[in-house]
């Protein structure tokens, strides 16, 4: 894993430094943190389908480093929640997060850019089943073993939870068994192998994977497509939103489509570019989150 290996020292040193500074006063710490942030820009990534693409991470790091004129550390964690926690606690300068954590922490986060998928900042949730399954719609997956992606994922959890909430039920009652794979690609693997009989997945990831790994995706079939939802956005903590590095980062994303390396990255991600988003794009996600929240 050369790309991650390369990025580790920068990330490690910055975190160690931060941890050291945690002992100091909050105000002093904030000032010093900013000074260190000027050195290394920390960009958090949730495992969309990137978990299998070292080359993409390396290109992204190269592109951002060039545009920001400073070292960029790509921070990856196993769960969405870890990235959210790092972001909210100010340990990241920016992050690509799911729309679910965005609506949860919408008051503390500023939208920087929203990816354009098929020229729209929208995506869907799919409910998939194994190709051998006889299920035709969402209600047919009752009593199955279900694979979720991540408890903080809109497509990989929230939408399914919302559908269950509408039926006044919970996963433990509706499914025979359920588990989290912490990756959309893993949901396809779980459903394709038969480990799970159904799964909740990001429709964008499923579509892209169908071209990239057709043998794997062919073993799954969509039984439910959600409405169009706001695409997982690039965000920064409110406190950093006006920092030059963060602004440079947002500009780099918005300009990516006109840059050769940026274009390559977008091609790999099967995106058309980025746009400046608005919070109201995520109203539908917020509504559903509130329904689910009310049920608990």
């Amino acid at each position, binding site marked *: 894993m050369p790309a991650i290996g390369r990025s580790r020292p920068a990330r490690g040193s910055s975190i160690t430094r931060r941890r050291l500074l945690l002992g100091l006063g909050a105000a002093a710490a904030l000032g010093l943190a900013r000074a260190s942030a000027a050195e290394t820009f920390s960009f958090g990534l949730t495992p969309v389908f990137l978990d299998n693409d070292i080359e993409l991470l390396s290109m992204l790091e190269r592109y951002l480093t060039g545009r920001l004129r400073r070292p960029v550390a790509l921070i990856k964690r196993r769960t969405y929640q870890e990235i959210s926690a790092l972001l909210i606690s100010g340990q990241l300068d920016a992050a690509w997060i799911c729309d679910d954590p965005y609506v949860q922490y919408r008051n503390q986060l500023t939208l920087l850019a929203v990816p354009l998928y098929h020229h729209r900042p929208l995506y869907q949730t799919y409910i998939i089943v194994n190709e051998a399954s006889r299920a035709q719609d969402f209600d047919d997956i009752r009593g199955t073993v279900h694979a979720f992606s991540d408890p903080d994922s809109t497509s990989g959890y929230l939408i399914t939870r919302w559908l269950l909430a509408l039926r006044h039920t919970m996963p433990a009652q509706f499914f025979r068994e359920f588990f989290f794979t912490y990756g959309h690609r893993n949901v396809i*693997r779980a459903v394709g192998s038969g*480990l799970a009989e159904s799964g909740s997945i990001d429709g964008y990831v499923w579509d892209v994977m169908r071209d990239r790994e057709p043998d794997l995706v062919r073993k799954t079939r969509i039984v439910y497509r959600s409405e169009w939802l706001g695409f997982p956005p690039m965000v920064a903590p409110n406190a950093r939103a006006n920092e030059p590095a963060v602004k440079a980062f947002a500009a780099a994303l918005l300009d990516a489509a006109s840059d050769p390396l940026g274009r390559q990255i977008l091609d790999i991600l099967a995106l058309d570019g980025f746009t400046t988003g608005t919070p109201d794009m995520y109203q539908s996600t917020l509504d559903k989150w509130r329904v689910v929240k009310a049920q608990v």
Partner: protein
Amino acid sequence: MPRLLRLTSWPLTVKVPLLVAGLMVAIAVAISQIVLARLARDQETNLRLLSNAYLDGLSAAVLPAVIRSDIWETFDALDRARGRYSGVKVRYAFVELPNETILAASDPDRFPVMKPVPEKLRKEFPKDDGLAIDEASGRAWLTRTLRTEGFSVGRIHAEIDIADLLRVRHQVLLTLLLANGGLALAFALIGYFAVKHMLQPLSVLTRYVERIRDGRLEPIPQRYRRNVASEFGQIFDRFNAMARTLSERETLATQLAEQEKYAMLGRLASGMAHEVNNPLGGMLNAIDTIQAHGNDPAVVQTSLEFLKRGLAGIRNVVRAALVTYKGGSGTVLTPAELDDLPFLVQHETGVRRLRLEWCNRVEAPLAIDGPAVRQVVLNLLLNACAASPVAGAVAVEAAPADGGLRITVSDEGPGLPIELAALLEQPETPAPSRAGKGLGLWTTAHLVRRLGGRVAVERPGTGTRVVVTLPVVPTKETTRDAA
């Protein structure tokens, strides 16, 4: 046919190579057993080591996930471990929770999550941690308990394909069979030719011994004496020495028998002179009678009859003597040749007023040395006549018996001395030691042995009975007659 079945009668050239091949096969079987047993043991040891390595790696990978009952992480670890362990062909693996349900399997279609382990399969896996091998199905089953802080949190079960190991074993077996079979065959062939070469002198010896049976006593030529092993050289030398001795003895015996014949003829001659002379007086009287009373046809007729009888008697005596002297044919005995004999002893019987009871039951010619038989009977008859008291009875009976010829000569004499009886009865004819004394009986014994017969001397109260049994060579004609 039964001779072929008797192993001891097989020639050495076959027995030795068969023995070598048999030993090779026995050694090959033993070695193959050892090699295969060792191979099987090594394979099992290797399988255990590799299985343990596989389970060690897998346990470390799945343990944290199993503690959390994390279906995905457990599956991910099982899935990633698939095909990573060279030497262990894992068909499937699954993790069973303490509540006996499956947490995750490498083959979820077959082992759905949170379902019980199929009962049929449960029996295949070892109850405790370890390895169970079933060679018949080419499978092996592994079980490993996952423990944390001494508590069992689950068990890994895996099925391994060991067909490759068994295939290697079969290949080794096949190689051993081919190699050892080839070696056994090669050694058998080498053994055959080696033994055949080594036994070459023996076949020469056998050939020359066989010739003795045909009556040809020849020493082994010097050219065979060369290039043979020292043991065979000595045997050849001994054989040649024996052949020389036997040949000399045979010549001597033949000469003695010949001499005895002439001696006997000499003895017979005077008797014969009497036998010729006696009728001569009567015959001259008959001629005188014819001259004196030639006018009386009845007298002439009676005289001529008398003359004819006298001449016939003379002719018989002379003919018997001639046959004895000349020898006649050496392969056939006609009944008439035996019936001649009483004429030759007429004088002996006449002088001592002996009663000769002659009984010849031989009706057809026999394939036997006629002159020799005649001499045997004549010798015994003369001996009996000599031994009989005056006016005693001498009986001769010749009859076919058991595919041979039995001749019995009895007298009423004092009995044959033991040493002479032994001379007749013993299987080997000793060298004639005392010239003249018992030469007649020695010749008889010698001739009987030469004809392949035997002699029994009996003492039935008074006198002696000598029974000679002679084999008759079966000829085509006699065989057909017998059939």
